[in-house]
């Protein structure tokens, strides 16, 4: 357990799409030990509960980390009002992130909406061997496409309304990929129905798959046992905790119809 409480200065705030913000913060203690897929639990003025927000990018050399979050309720709305220079009080890095394989493996990343940011750091590690499929409601909701492409990954977009890229579900793109090419591992984050479908496709093709899950959280460090999700342990559904044993789980072990 290597997490710390850090008062991180907000270096740069950008709005990537309507209601979606990117914060770059100076957080050297976190940046030096964090791994792709982990998260930070961020304090929000006037709220008891911190907001768990996944780490999007890590820059240990300059002690910086990046988060991308969507305004979903009061807490994230308050957070989105922070200005450059403000202090962001965070506990991080938390949870079990993505297990990254050898960079020579053929890795596929599938993200839906605000499930896209947690995949970026992991995708970077595979360079040109990463195939990235990102699904959004529409072109206006699109985020981080160039950020994925800059490391050489092949990026394809799907939109629900057909305003950009493939008109339909991002899982259709994955299906096509699995039919045509060899894939060693799939990493996915997004709405639960999407993840469930991806898990089924991965299983059918015998491809390893890791998914990042969400649940309402309390302490964020594994003490309060609030963020339970049923995970198979020796074939038996057992409550594990998204904050400590997750957020990334082996898709085969997730009980999808709980």
């Amino acid at each position, binding site marked *: *357990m*290597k*997490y*710390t*409480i850090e008062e991180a200065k907000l270096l740069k705030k950008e709005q990537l799409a309507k209601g979606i913000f990117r914060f770059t913060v100076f957080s050297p203690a976190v940046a030096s030990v964090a791994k792709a897929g982990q998260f930070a639990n961020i*304090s929000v003025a006037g*709220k*008891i*509960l*911190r907001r768990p927000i996944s780490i999007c990018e890590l820059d240990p050399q300059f002690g910086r980390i990046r988060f991308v979050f969507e305004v979903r309720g009061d*807490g994230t709305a308050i957070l989105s009002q922070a200005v450059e220079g403000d202090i962001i009080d965070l*506990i991080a890095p938390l949870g079990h992130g993505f297990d990254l394989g050898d960079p020579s493996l053929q890795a596929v990343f599938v993200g839906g909406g605000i499930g896209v940011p947690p995949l970026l750091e992991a995708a970077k590690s595979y360079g040109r061997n990463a195939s990235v499929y990102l699904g959004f409601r529409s072109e206006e909701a699109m985020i981080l496409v160039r950020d994925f492409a800059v490391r050489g990954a092949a990026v394809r977009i799907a939109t629900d309304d057909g305003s950009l890229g493939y008109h339909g579900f991002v899982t259709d793109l994955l299906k096509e990929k699995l039919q045509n090419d060899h894939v060693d591992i799939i990493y996915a984050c997004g709405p639960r129905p999407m993840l469930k479908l991806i898990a089924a496709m991965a299983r059918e093709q015998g491809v390893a798959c890791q998914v990042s899950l969400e*649940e*309402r*959280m*309390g*302490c*964020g*460090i*594994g*003490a*309060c*046992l*609030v*963020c*339970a*999700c049923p995970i198979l342990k020796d074939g038996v559904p*057992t*409550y594990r905790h998204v904050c*400590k044993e997750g957020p990334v789980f082996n898709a085969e072990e997730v009980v999808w119809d*709980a």
Partner: protein
Amino acid sequence: MPDLKINFCGIEFKNPVFTASGTYGFGREFNALYPISLLGGISCKGTTLAPREGNPPPRIAETPSGILNSVGLQNPGVEHFINEDLPWLLEQKTGIIVNIAGSTVEEYCEMAERLSETAVDIIELNISCPNVKHGGAAFGTSCASVTEITGEVKKHCTKPLMVKLSPNVTSIADIAKSAEAAGADALSLINTIMAMRIDIETRRPILKNNKGGLSGPAVLPVAIRMVNEVANAVNLPIMGMGGISDWRDALEMLLAGASAVQVGTILFNDPLAPIKIIDGLNRYLKSHGIARVSELTGAVQLW
């Protein structure tokens, strides 16, 4: 230097600040942030005879100045606690309260007997958990059942027995008197207040268990009132809890009649809260020329 030490049930603790059951696990996760030896002690996660999986999620909902929870006593069972968690806890040199819960009187007795053989400091009888179907608060909401369970467990318990009271009763002072008469060595209060929230879009309760327990700053005034009523009704040491967020709240709790405090929900916001409370109490004693923290217990002067 003011003296923060307290004597609670004949046991000396280095200060009156404890962490509340269910918010702190068995201390490991917080010990990664600061040494838990700084605390007066911890009240461990509610423990049952057999391991429990707890309730289905969602188990938490945010409320104005508080939270609802319905974890349902997920825990690895008392033997696991004794074998895996207790040895580590003993090395940390902090006070150890074990919170026990059961669905029958016999289960409570068996756990009390088993834990009496160990080096824990205090056994906290949890007869106020609102989130389990059998047992839990059912034992804690009538004077007759409080008398029965306290008396029975006391026969099997050689450790100080602290009965944790539910606020979901008509007269908490009457319940407290029953616990005292049946042999309780101390009382802790309050557990969470039964509550509910509904998602207006899905028209479903936010918690999968429908109802849960309210805690956090919202409940502090209720807790202060109840601790004061109980302090005036019994002659037992009280560990006060319910919404304490900072040293001022803790001080209020002591003045109301508590000898020690437990800090819970605020930990989710600020894991360092108990340490800041200890510092704040120290500064208050110093600036007010008070020699011992124990002088504050029950020092409120009612109108």
